[in-house]
Structures are given as structure tokens and as C-alpha cells.
């Protein structure tokens, strides 16, 4: 099913790390156009490092990254954004003293001087609370609203592939539900998303496919449904401590 779609992102044998510490040891991964793909795995498995290596925040030491057929291995981060690879960084990284609207405006920085009316409308439609808060400074928003703004800001760049790093981090279950409802809408509109998430069960429920990362490699890959049903995945990553809280 997935191989029938066009390929958005193709990663082949990717190695990367920090200094001499190699974190990624030969990653193969593919994201098709219009797919939502989740990376799951424990702390330190290399999920965030993989996202950083894809958009050029850390240079890969071996392997290839192809984006829409073009080799973008070791691209400069600002070029990655121009090409349409936009990341919502872990911890949101908003511009605290600036207003919601200014944050959104800066999200479109890579597009140069253009009319953003339509883009604002789309973000406000997705996250109505941001419209009410548009003249408020970002630092006064609640955690959930900040995450919405971080996603909204990334959308302002009109991404072709949206990379989300831990969107549920530190949020109350109700807010996590809102964020993922928004991701579902983006998914239904045909957005392509690569998602890194601690809460594996939640993430897989909102994805087409998933990869399980372990110690810098891909341990398992498959459709979201297969992974949710897989005994090993259930045991290791979907532990019973998740069973109690329904977050969707």
C-alpha cells in the first residue's frame, strides 16, 4: 500500500551523531506523499536526532537523504525550510516576547515578502484560540496554545513535509487531544507528516505507518495497525501505564 504512493522522503543508510558519538547507525526510512509516519522508541533511541539530521541541524556522516527525488544530504537548515521541510522543534521554541501574529509572520520568513492573509486564516481556522490571542505575546499562552502556535508557525512556511518533534510533551491529556485532532485535519487535507512521539499508542492511532527505533537503528517497521497489534511493540512501547488514559 505504501510503496504505491510517490516518495516524499527517502532515507538510506543514514549515519549521524554528535562529535564522535554516533547516534544513528544506518537508518532506512521512507515517507510517501500524503502519509503520516510515526517514529517511536525509547529515550535515546535517536528519534529526534534523525529529524535533526534530515533538516541539516547535524551533518550526517554517511548515507543519503532524498527529498522529492533530490539529494539533500547535509543541507543547510535554512535551505531545508525553503525546500519545504519544516520542523516543529521539541520544546516549541517560540519567540516569547513577540505576539502570536508576529510569531506566525516569522514562520513565513523563508517565503519572502508575500501576502499572508490566507495563511493566517488557515491557521486560525485550525486553531481558533490563536485568533483570539493574536495580539498577545507568545510567552503568555498556555502550554497547549504554545504548541498550537508552534504548529501554526510551521504551517506558515507552507511545508511539503512537516516534521513534528514530541508535540504532546508536557501537555494535559485534553490538550494533547486537541493537538492530535488538528493533526488529523492536516492529514485529511493531504499533508505529509513525520512524527516523533513518546506516547506511541496515541501516535500510531493517528498515523498510517510507523517505525520502531532502537539504539540508533530501525528495529521494526509496518502499518500503524500492525504495530499496534504487534506483541513486542505492545509489551515494550505500549505498556499498560498508557492503557488507563484515553487521550484521543
Amino acid at each position, binding site marked *: 500500500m505504501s510503496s504505491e504512493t510517490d516518495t516524499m522522503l527517502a532515507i538510506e543508510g543514514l549515519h549521524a551523531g554528535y562529535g564522535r558519538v554516533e547516534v544513528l547507525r544506518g537508518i532506512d526510512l521512507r515517507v510517501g506523499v500524503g502519509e503520516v509516519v510515526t517514529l517511536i522508541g525509547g529515550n535515546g533511541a535517536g528519534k529526534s536526532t534523525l529529524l535533526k539530521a534530515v533538516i541539516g541541524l547535524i551533518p550526517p556522516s554517511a548515507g543519503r537523504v532524498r527529498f522529492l527525488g533530490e539529494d539533500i544530504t547535509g543541507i543547510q537548515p*535554512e535551505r531545508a525550510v525553503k525546500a519545504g521541510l519544516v520542523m516543529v522543534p521539541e520544546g516549541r521554541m*517560540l*519567540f*516569547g516576547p513577540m505576539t502570536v501574529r*508576529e510569531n506566525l509572520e516569522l514562520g513565513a*520568513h523563508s517565503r519572502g515578502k508575500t501576502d499572508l492573509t490566507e495563511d493566517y486564516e488557515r491557521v486560525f481556522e485550525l486553531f481558533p484560540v490563536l485568533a483570539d490571542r493574536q495580539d498577545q505575546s507568545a510567552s503568555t499562552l498556555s502550554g497547549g496554545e504554545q504548541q498550537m502556535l508552534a504548529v501554526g*508557525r510551521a504551517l506558515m512556511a507552507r511545508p511539503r513535509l512537516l516534521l513534528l518533534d514530541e508535540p504532546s510533551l508536557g501537555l494535559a491529556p485534553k490538550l494533547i487531544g486537541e493537538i492530535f485532532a488538528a493533526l488529523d485535519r492536516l492529514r485529511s487535507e493531504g499533508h505529509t507528516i513525520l512524527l516523533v512521539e513518546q506516547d506511541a499508542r496515541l501516535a500510531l492511532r493517528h498515523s498510517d505507518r510507523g517505525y520502531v527505533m532502537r539504539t540508533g537503528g530501525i528495529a521494526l517497521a509496518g502499518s500503524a495497525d500492525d504495530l499496534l497489534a504487534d506483541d513486542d511493540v505492545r509489551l515494550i512501547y505500549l505498556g499498560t501505564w498508557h492503557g488507563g488514559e484515553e487521550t484521543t
Partner: protein
Amino acid sequence: MHRNVDIKVAVLLGLIGASVFSVPLLTADRYMLRVLTFVGVNVIIVAGMALLFGYAGQVSLGHAAFYGIGAYASAHVVTVFGWPWVAGVAIAIVLTAAGGLLLALPSLRLRGHYLAMATLAFGEIMRVAFVEGKGVTGGPDGLSGIPFPSFLGIEVDSAGGNYWLVWSAAAAVLLIASNLVRSRAGRAMLALHGSEAGAMSCGMDLTGLKVRVFVISAAFAGLAGSLYAHVVGFISPSTFSLHVSVLLVAMAVLGGTRSLAGPVLAAVILTMIPFADAVIPGLSRSAVETIQEWQEDVYGLTIIAVMLFVPGGIAGALRRIAAKGSVR
């Protein structure tokens, strides 16, 4: 509402501009005009420091070196080579911009406070060069007999003329800086100050941006150096020491971030402290001498007091006043 505020700001700026411009018409006090001219020179450098520190979030501990390079380069080509004054100014700007580029490119590629370290070292190297490079700089004795600015055959030799010249340059520099701040690059600088990772995720070329701002701030300092040399007529290494670099940083910090008006006001205040008698008529000579003797301590105490009692520096205080003035 917004337009109303804009009109108020424009009127205020117009009034300030008019009163700054009219000073030489109202007084012929040479001492006062000289002090205020010197204030204008510092305002030019601080405009660059405000961009660098307050917007791009970088610290330079070597701007006195650019100030010095501008002064010596301009003084040398005009005094020794006999080039016209305008060429001296141009050389000062070009040399300092190039020097800024050479210093910024390697140190801004690295994360962290490498620029501060590099500029500190650069400042010290240049201080030694100013003392030892006797052929160009006149060594510890300095260069004297630097001619007044002159263009179109007119020599600007009066205190009032020099005042107008320096403050016109300061106005031009502030205009360039405020345009830059309002441009896309300015927004990007603010973003960079807010969150580097966030700015990067928005696709901003951070290194390029920081390098550009540093080059501009170096060129401003170079221009100020050239103006200083020709207005004062004498330059020596002590004018361009680390002490001055630190004072410039203090002006930027005291002024507050994300603001041009704050640092400019800070520059005016800190420059005037040792020459308070120029504007406060009744001040006795001994009081001024005491202030000058305790200058460093007065600076230090002023900075501590502002940090403690005026959060956000002068810019923060200005914003609070503006917020009170306009009903939101």
C-alpha cells in the same frame, strides 16, 4: 489607534530632532557644543551596538578598536597623503566593515560567546598596534594636526558646524538603523534573540544575519572614529582602549534590548556624566572634578541601579511609559 500612536511618535521625533538641531543657534558656548558633539559621536557607535546586542543578541568587547581603526585610517590618509576628507571617511567605513567581516565570519559560525572572545582579543591586538605602529599612528604620542572636515571647498571649523556635521551623521545612522530594524532582517533579528532554535526552524540564515549586523556595527564605529579624529584634531591610543569598549557595551545593556531609543539615551547620559557642568549651569568645578575622579564608580553604580530598579533598561522604562500613555 495605531496610526494615532505613529503620529505621536513622529511629532515627538520631530521635536527632538528640531531641538537637537537648534542647539548651536541658541548657544555659542564652545565647551558645551564640544561635549554635545562628542555625545553625537557616541550615539553613532551605540546605534551599531544596539543592533548587535539588542537585536542580534551578540556582545562585542572590541568596538573601540573599530572606532580607532576608523579614526587612524581617516586621519592618516588625510593628514599624510593629503586625500580629501570625504575619502578619509570612506576609507574609515570600508576598512572597518572589511575588518568586521574578517572577524565575524569565523567566530560567528560557532555557537556561544566566541564573538565576545574574538572581539576582546582583537581589541587588545589593535590597542598594541595603535601604540607600536608609529609609522601610521604616531605611537603613544598619537596623531595631531588632523585637519577639520571639509567638503565642496568649505572647511567646517566652527564648534557649531562640527556639531551639526556629527549630529547629521548620527541622524543618518539612526535612520539606517531604524529602517533595518523594521525590515524583514530586523524581524529575523528579533526572532533570533527570542529563540535561536525557533529562528532556525523558520528557515532563517542566522550566521549570515549576525555577520551582516556585525559588519554594519563595525562600519558605524569606523564612521564615528573618522568624525572624532577630524573634529577633535588629535587622537591617541587611550581613546580606543578596552575601557571604551566596555563602556559601549554598558550603554547598550543600560539602554535595553529591542530598542534604539533606549541605548541612544543611555549613550547621551553616560557620555554626559563626566561633563555634567556643560549642561547644568550651577554645577561647581570641584563637583565635576569629583565626578570625573569617580567616573568608573559612577558608571558602575548607575548600571547596577538600572539593573535593580529599571527592569529592561531604559527601553523597558520607555515601553512602560508608552503603554500608560495609550489606552489599549
